[in-house]
């Protein structure tokens, strides 16, 4: 019965969001709506509706073909990407280089990001140590203006 109390409050979205992020932080895996529903003891449709609202707030990006699955819970990616982030022996995946640094910031941990040059493929290994990026020869090119980032956030 306790879940009825939860779904009656306006805070289900926060509960779902926190559960998603805590699951990722602990397991590196991005949970599906069914997994969140099972873990929280909340009906699946309620969680799916929360996913939709969180997407509307641009806090999640859902898989275009399956809105019960998360493509991005920024800075984390729901799929393997070219931006792995190694933290305390665990490998997370980020959506882009900004988000790769964001994983270290979100977890408040040191991290190693074994990335590569966007043109040549040459390794460019970034590191965050004691809350700062270790100086590295690199630049980040923003090809898409801020006004258009969400027109195709997966491309951005």
């Amino acid at each position: 019965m306790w879940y009825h109390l939860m779904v009656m409050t306006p805070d289900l979205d926060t509960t779902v969001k926190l559960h998603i992020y805590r699951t990722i932080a602990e397991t590196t895996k991005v949970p599906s709506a069914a997994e969140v529903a099972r873990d929280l003891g909340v009906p699946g449709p309620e969680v799916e509706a929360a996913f939709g609202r969180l997407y509307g707030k641009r806090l999640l990006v859902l898989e275009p073909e399956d809105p019960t699955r998360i493509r991005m819970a920024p800075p984390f990616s729901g799929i393997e990407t070219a931006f792995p982030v190694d933290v305390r022996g665990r490998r997370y995946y980020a959506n882009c280089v900004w988000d790769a640094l964001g994983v270290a910031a979100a977890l408040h941990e040191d991290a190693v990001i074994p990335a590569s040059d966007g043109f040549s493929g040459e390794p460019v290994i970034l590191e965050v140590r004691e809350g700062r990026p270790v100086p590295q020869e690199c630049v980040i090119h923003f090809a898409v203006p801020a006004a258009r980032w969400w027109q195709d956030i997966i491309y951005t």
Partner: protein
Amino acid sequence: MLLFRSEETVERWCEVHQVPRRPLVNLEQLWRLAVIWYENRLTAESRRPTPQDMVGIFASVGLEGSFWDPAADQWAGAR
């Protein structure tokens, strides 16, 4: 956005993909943006910056102009 070893590889990438050269950001600037965006993401209080917030955040790390303004309308037809 993409990571490059140098401005030279940015130029070559833009040439190959026929994409205009756009602003470059350095590692320290990107780290500051990452911290502002994500340091509280695992807490109940976290929220995504509003478009108005974003303009101020970008300016605080030295990124100014319409490219960094989410409300700018001049980019609607841009590649």
